[in-house]
């Protein structure tokens, strides 16, 4: 029930009217008061993720954990930027919280493995989600942008975790805005290394196993990535051997441009948020050449060159090289 509210609340939050009860103090908090607790929690969560990465044996989930960590690092950097701009202090270290969360993560992993860890992570995300929703009330200007972005990442993260837990435990699928089959199409739980789900698609999923590093791209991402190839290469793909086609798709799928695009174009809608693909900036009005055409080298500059080969073997080569015109016959 609580998490069902989350999706709606989050969606409303982004349009400015959160449903989550406000925890705001009477006096508007300063930026430092607003951001330091959030930064402390995110840093502690990253520490916990690092512990989970150290214990997680399945590569797909390691990639998911790294992606979660990257999002949390981005949240911290955005808030830290806003604090820096005002001349504020660096984010607090949150040593005690960090240690507690790390210990908790290790314990959780040992007791319940991946599922329990994902469950604990989702719990932490829910707490952050509430706090970001509340913070949005009190932030304006660039700070509001930063909170909004962090809230978006947190909502997406919560939905990824919810979908995984629903797939693994059979519980909680109703909290997702779309049917579970849109998140997981396969027979066994798997995590795509691009979207971290296992979405359906018209092309088959791609999987590489030992002796290769384990690699998995779901059918949905296979479709999406093929569509990302520029026309001059896309038109040739069918002529490549199947192994090469798959390799090029996997190469592209795990790269940052494609994973970031998946976040905005795939994961946001699967989290009840709109697709949010940036619009490439409009070409600037420029004057070319910027100053004036570069002049030819000044003809009056003359210099005396002296070359003295160290050995007989070099002599002919050096003579040709410093003739400045004879080498042309080798072009």
């Amino acid at each position, binding site marked *: 029930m609580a998490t069902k509210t989350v999706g709606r609340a989050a969606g409303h939050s982004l349009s400015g009217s959160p449903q989550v009860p406000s925890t705001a103090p009477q006096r508007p908090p300063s930026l430092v008061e607003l951001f330091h607790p959030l930064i402390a929690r995110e840093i502690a969560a990253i520490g916990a993720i690092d512990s989970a990465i150290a214990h997680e044996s399945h590569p797909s989930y390691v990639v998911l954990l790294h992606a979660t960590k990257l999002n949390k690092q981005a949240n*911290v950097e955005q808030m830290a*930027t806003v604090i820096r701009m005002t001349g504020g202090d660096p984010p607090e270290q949150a040593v005690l919280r*960090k240690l507690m969360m790390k210990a908790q993560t290790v314990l959780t992993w040992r007791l319940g493995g991946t599922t329990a860890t994902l469950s604990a992570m989702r719990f932490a995300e829910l707490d952050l989600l509430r706090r970001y929703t509340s913070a949005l009330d009190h932030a304006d200007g660039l700070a509001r942008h930063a909170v909004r972005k962090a809230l978006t990442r947190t909502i997406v993260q919560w939905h990824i975790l919810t979908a995984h837990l629903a797939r693994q435990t059979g519980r909680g699928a109703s909290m997702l805005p779309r049917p579970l089959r849109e998140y997981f199409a396969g027979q066994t739980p798997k995590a795509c290394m691009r979207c971290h789900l296992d979405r359906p698609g018209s092309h088959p999923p791609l999987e590489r196993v030992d002796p290769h590093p384990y*690699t998995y791209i779901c059918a949905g991402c296979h479709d999406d990535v093929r569509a990302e190839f*520029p026309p001059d290469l896309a038109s040739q793909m069918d002529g490549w051997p199947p192994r090469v086609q798959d390799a090029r798709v996997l190469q592209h799928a795990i790269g940052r*441009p494609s994973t970031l695009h998946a976040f905005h174009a795939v994961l946001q809608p699967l989290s009840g948020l709109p697709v949010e*693909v940036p619009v490439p900036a409009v070409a600037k009005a*420029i004057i070319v050449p910027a100053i004036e055409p570069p002049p030819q080298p000044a003809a009056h500059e003359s210099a005396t060159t002296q070359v*003295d080969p160290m050995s007989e073997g070099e002599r002919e080569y050096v003579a040709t*090289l410093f003739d400045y015109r004879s080498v042309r016959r080798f072009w």
Partner: protein
Amino acid sequence: MPFSQIDTNAAIDRWVPSTCGLCSIGCRVDIGVSGQTIVGVRGHVGHPVNSGRLGPKGLNQYFANRHPHRATAPLIRGRDGRLLHATWDDAMALMVDRFNEALAIDGPDAVAIYNSGQLLLEEYYTLGKIARAGLGIANIDANTRLCTATTAASLMENFGADGPPGAYEDFEQTECIVLVGHNAAEQSTVLWMRILAAKAGPLHPKIIVIDPRRTFTVATGADLHLQLKPGTNVALLNGICNLLIENGWIDRDFIAQHTIKFEQLRDIVSTYTPEHVERICGVPSDKLRQAAEWIGTSRTTVSTCLQGVYQSNQATAAACAVNNIHLLTGKIGRPGCAPFQFAGQPSSMSTRETGADGTYPAYRNWEDANHMIDLAARWNVPVELLGKKPVGAPEIFELCEHGYVKVLWNIATNPAVSMMNRTSHLRTLNGVFLIVQDCFADTETAQLADVVLPSAMWGEKTGCMTNAERRVTLLRKAVDPPGEAKSDFDIFVDFAARMNLRDADGAPLIQYIDPEDAFDEWRMVSRGCIPDYSGMSYERLDETGGLQWPCTDARPEGTTRLYSDLSFPTAWYVSESYEKDIETGHEHTLNEYREKRDPRGRAVFVATDYQPPNDTTDAEFPLIAISGRQVYHWHTRTKTGRAPLLHDAAPGIFISVNEEDAAELGIRDGDIIEVISRRGSVGGPAKVGDVVPRGVVFIPFHYGELGDVHAANNLMPKLWDPVSKQPVQKIAAVRVEAAARTSEEPWWQRKP
């Protein structure tokens, strides 16, 4: 007598010790100064790298310093589209505002830094620290991605970490030299002089050149030329490996004790018989056998790779195949034996060592929590904010193209000419907020800038460079930069302060203000790591003229060659990388590597089947275009285009066409032709001859002024190697059309 070039009638006040700022050999030079003007250079007599020798570019490099078009004041683009003079305060304030705005609104994905292989070590270190520990971004890379990324990738795959194992003296101590995709006579002139001297010496090394073109190198020193089809390096090198194994020219004890995955290699290369290789590569089988015999029966072998490997099809796989040859024959870690995976630029090595190419400093592994904890402690920053997977330059430009990156800081490089699939990259550069920091304000990239920051160049600042044999040299400032230009180092320090970047205690993140203090911090950060600089200091570098890392308190004289103990940094806790999939670039996780793959100090054979290039020839595009450099120019001619002799020697584009292809197409020497690929075209005069084989055209990549059609990169596809992320800039399927017949003599036929 050293090689020298001095202004006619110049009166030299002083000679200032430095290192050549072009190519990766690292020749020691003395800069001749009169007042505040560089008036000449000379090779440094007795230096172990060049013994007083210099190449044409090295001798002419000082003309760029005093060229009238040096950037001398900051520029900001005005509303009318013109670049207008500004104060440093205004330019930096605008830059900082845009960085902060992008970081606050969209986060670290929204900004990117693209730097160079031509700055100084202290500058790279500072920039890398700003990016990783200050801004928290992963979008930082250098143009070394275009030249030396595969070097690092192949060394990591085979040996566990970057770091070329050999020393230049190995060229004088070997019986066989194999140059793979390395036109040394044009790209590494002083090295080629040394090789030719060695060839005339007591060991008379056999020289094998593997290159699609009949190059200057082939003509002046090759004993055997394997003229393969472009993009087929892997097949040919697998064929050599197969012959080495088949004929027993391998070191079985070395393989058993110091390597893993020999069986996988043997199984894959066994199908690459000389006849099969001939069908793929076009190299006669007897020549392949001859090459394998020379390599296999020589007691010592040195090999080199350059852009013919790194910018071609299957780059990392091919570079690893060269390393495989050394592992098969046990020719590593001893005099006269080394795979020289070369760097392309004078301080490419420093970029890679310090992490300005997106890696973490001192070859730390971003996935290893202990490496990050150690680095965070030395930097005094929260470890939680480190450990981000590097994003390579092709990916950064794709992020720009799609609008994710809003602000791009471009430092000492000219991607408007040098990036593959150039047309799309020009749109990209035109769309982002572009800050260009360069010594010239008229480069093609600077013309698209929103802010231009004028920087000092070679000879105008102090700092270190590391060459391709790991030798660190100190370049002393000889003259002041012109006008208001500042050193890149000073700009970085200023930027960090204006951004209010701080460490975990609230102290400034960058606490030094001069390069020597930065170097001392770098020594501390590198201590105990693979590229250990802890035993170096400016004073010792001045005294010795250069030291090879690792250089420690216990080993103050430095280290001539790596792996002399035949122990490789492949164990999980030291390895810089966890073995990537050569076909996809995906990397093992730490746990996968530790549990299933850890070679525990042994080197790794990396075997791959040949795959044809992805940009395929067909009836519409029947030829292959390859690109490359000329001896008299450097990259996009930002510097060499300003030197009279160099400009005169190579004033413009040409397109090399095989004489038989030309006859079929009705093309004569000097005719203007158009080369068309699936994504763009290049126009220029045809240079007809037998340098390129049938079916291939060659275009130098130095040219590409905005608004003309001279850029070879107009043709090249948006493809990059999966492991090294190095763009494929030597393979494009094209057709050639005759455009115009001219009565003028082409420039290469004109008399002086």
